[in-house]
């Protein structure tokens, strides 16, 4: 029902303006408002379309460009940094491997050298030892002949003193040789 009254009010606007006291429903104020609305709103539309919007979108787009540029650059830099980081790690790993290799090789070298030195010294020692042995043997032999001579002379002298005779030297020599032989064989055993 209220709606019907509402409609009735609208259909006879001039009457309603008086009854409800609504200045909005007085048709005499409609024309000037519409006219000025067209003028002012049209002006506003033109200014916004031609002046304000280009200015606004300019600065906004500029900023968006700037931001996305910066973002892109940051991404690029981050990626580069990551690549650098990786290569750096690789280099370090390589260096570590190489170092351990070098250490291992050096160890081998040193061991080899030590071994060589040891061998050489052993050889030298052996040589010296053999020489010494030879000397000793020589000396032994010499001493044996010396001993023989001494024994011969001594026994010759003793026999001469005791008997006043000279005994055949050959005889004495044979005896001494036998004794020495016996001695030597005993020594060997």
């Amino acid at each position, binding site marked *: 029902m209220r709606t019907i009254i509402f*409609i009735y009010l609208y259909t006879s606007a001039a009457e309603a303006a008086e009854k409800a006291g609504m200045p909005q429903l007085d048709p005499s104020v409609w024309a000037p408002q519409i006219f000025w609305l067209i003028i002012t709103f049209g002006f506003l539309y033109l200014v916004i379309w031609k002046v304000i919007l280009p200015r606004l979108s300019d600065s906004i787009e500029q900023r968006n460009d700037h931001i996305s540029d910066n973002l892109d650059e940051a991404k690029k830099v981050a990626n580069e940094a990551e690549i650098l980081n990786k290569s750096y790690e690789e280099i370090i790993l390589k260096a570590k491997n190489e170092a351990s290799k070098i250490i291992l090789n050096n160890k081998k070298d040193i061991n080899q050298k030590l071994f060589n030195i040891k061998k050489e010294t052993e050889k030298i020692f052996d040589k010296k030892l053999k020489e010494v042995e030879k000397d000793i043997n020589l000396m032994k032999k010499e001493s044996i002949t010396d001993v023989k001579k001494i024994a011969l002379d001594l026994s010759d002298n003793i026999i001469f003193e005791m008997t006043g005779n000279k005994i055949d030297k050959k005889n004495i020599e044979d005896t001494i040789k036998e004794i020495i032989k016996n001695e030597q064989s005993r020594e060997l055993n």
Partner: protein
Amino acid sequence: MDLKELKNKIKKTNLIKTTSETHKGNAFGIAMRMGTEFVAAVFVASFIGFYLDKWLDTKPILMLIFFFIGAATGILNVVRTSKMINKE
């Protein structure tokens, strides 16, 4: 600056840029339509009925019929609006 920190920052900035474009916020605006929508439909329908009556000299039959059609339209509008809100 830490590399990880920088990367997180970049990610966050990108996230802000993308999420700000998908935000929906006009459910309230649609809800504001309901009451007037109903009244306007009834008004327009009755208006049509009123002038059809005048033209065909059938006062007030068509106006009454159109009043109810208008009410139906108003209800339909309200139903549509609430559907739209639910879809959001």
